[in-house]
């Protein structure tokens, strides 16, 4: 856990000195389980800033909704920093207009996993120094292992540290193990086709087409999404099996070589639909086939936006 006072002091400093016009961070939300994203425009407002493992949004998603020339300060974890690098490569914001306050991230807690054990009415959540969390709920007090309630994407995170932050507050954490990140993809790919399809249908066909996953994702910034397109209509727009499947297939595919595995899509889903088994597969392919890791080096183009004749050795039989 980074020192909250140090975070506030840094946010106040950059606002006071005019380095940025706005700092994007978190403030306390309506319930203790949901701190909410907040925009701080003056040093006085920064007193409301909070940071903790329950801050579940990927803040980089707000970058494309702000004017491109605005000087923005932002709290960034590893995944947010990589998203920002990918967005900067795509020309969505100039890196020099950003001031990134980095936080080595110990993982985001999946609030659903807490609620499963404590019931809906949670009064307070306190993170303790020994990697446990103390939850006070209407049904009593609970001490939970933090590792047991981490979001799945965070449990297999490879790069928890910010890669290009202007200042990092807190000690760097050890990098994750790529082999562990692969385990789930390989386990799923090893299943028979019928089981994979059954899982896909079961997940995709619970969708209510609210597009919360699209709104939560920093890389989904198209002015007009393919599902909103009318002529031609790429896929059915209602909650029909083909429409729901088409949305899930293409939403994930459009993240190929762009997804940072932050898991914001899954956390945003009101139907608790699993989606990272799709994006993880695509990310893993990009790693295996092209040695590409999203956002690690802002100068390297994603595989789909570049062409080499070396490819012919792989495709020509």
């Amino acid at each position: 856990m980074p020192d909250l006072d140090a975070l506030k002091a840094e946010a106040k400093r950059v606002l006071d000195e005019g380095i940025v016009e706005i700092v994007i961070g978190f403030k306390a939300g309506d319930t203790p389980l949901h701190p909410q994203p907040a925009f701080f425009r003056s040093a006085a407002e920064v007193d409301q800033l909070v940071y903790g493992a329950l801050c579940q949004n990927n803040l980089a998603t707000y970058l494309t909704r702000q004017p491109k020339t605005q000087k923005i300060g932002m709290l960034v974890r590893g995944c947010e920093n990589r998203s920002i690098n990918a967005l900067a490569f795509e020309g969505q914001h100039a890196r020099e207009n950003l001031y990134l306050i980095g936080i080595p991230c110990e993982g985001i807690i999946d609030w659903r996993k807490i609620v499963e054990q404590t019931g809906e009415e949670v009064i307070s959540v306190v993170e303790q120094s020994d990697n446990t969390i103390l939850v006070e709920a209407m049904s009593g007090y609970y001490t939970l292992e933090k590792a047991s309630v981490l979001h799945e994407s965070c449990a297999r995170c490879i790069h928890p540290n910010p890669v290009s932050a202007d200042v990092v507050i807190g000690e760097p954490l050890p990098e994750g193990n790529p082999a562990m990140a692969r385990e789930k993809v390989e386990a799923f790919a090893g299943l028979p086709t019928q089981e994979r399809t059954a899982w896909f249908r079961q997940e995709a066909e619970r969708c209510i087409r609210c597009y919360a996953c699209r709104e939560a994702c920093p890389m989904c910034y198209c002015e007009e999404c393919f599902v909103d397109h009318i002529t031609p209509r790429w896929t059915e727009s209602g909650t029909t099996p083909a429409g729901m499947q088409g949305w899930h297939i293409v939403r994930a595919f459009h993240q190929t070589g762009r997804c940072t595995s932050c898991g914001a899509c899954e956390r945003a889903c009101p139907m608790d639909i699993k989606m990272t088994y799709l994006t993880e597969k695509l990310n893993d392919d990009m790693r295996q086939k092209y040695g590409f890791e999203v956002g690690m080096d802002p100068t390297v183009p994603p595989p789909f936006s570049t062409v080499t004749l070396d490819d012919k050795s792989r495709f020509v039989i």
Partner: protein
Amino acid sequence: MSETPNLVLFQCQWCLFAPADQEWVDTQLPENIHHAKVPCTGRINPLYLLNAVQGGADGVMVSGCLPEQCHFKTGNIAARRQLDEFSDYLDHIGYEQDRIRFLWLDLQDRGIIQKELAAFEAQITALGPARNLATRAAQKAGGANA
């Protein structure tokens, strides 16, 4: 199943340079093969493949020019990365990779398209109809299109 599978052929307009082949594809293609002619393989968006799959195709064939022989220099290579990954990805969720075949055609290859289509049709017939992914409602049933 119906004995003949539904196939879709995406064809780059430059790769069938032999006029007899192009004539055959344009006029004498069997009815179960839906033909989509595109200016270059690079014009084929993965959404086109999804459209074919959701439209009930049991197999999809994409033909293009050999690398380095693309009319637009690199269209075929640029498209291949995406389409190859898309077919791999569809396999991940149940539309078998064998159902999507990429075909490189040399400008000198004559009569090869008919053989390749026949071989592909035999392969898809052996696999049976594609039932894993949902298909769109037909237009007469109130569906969006096709």
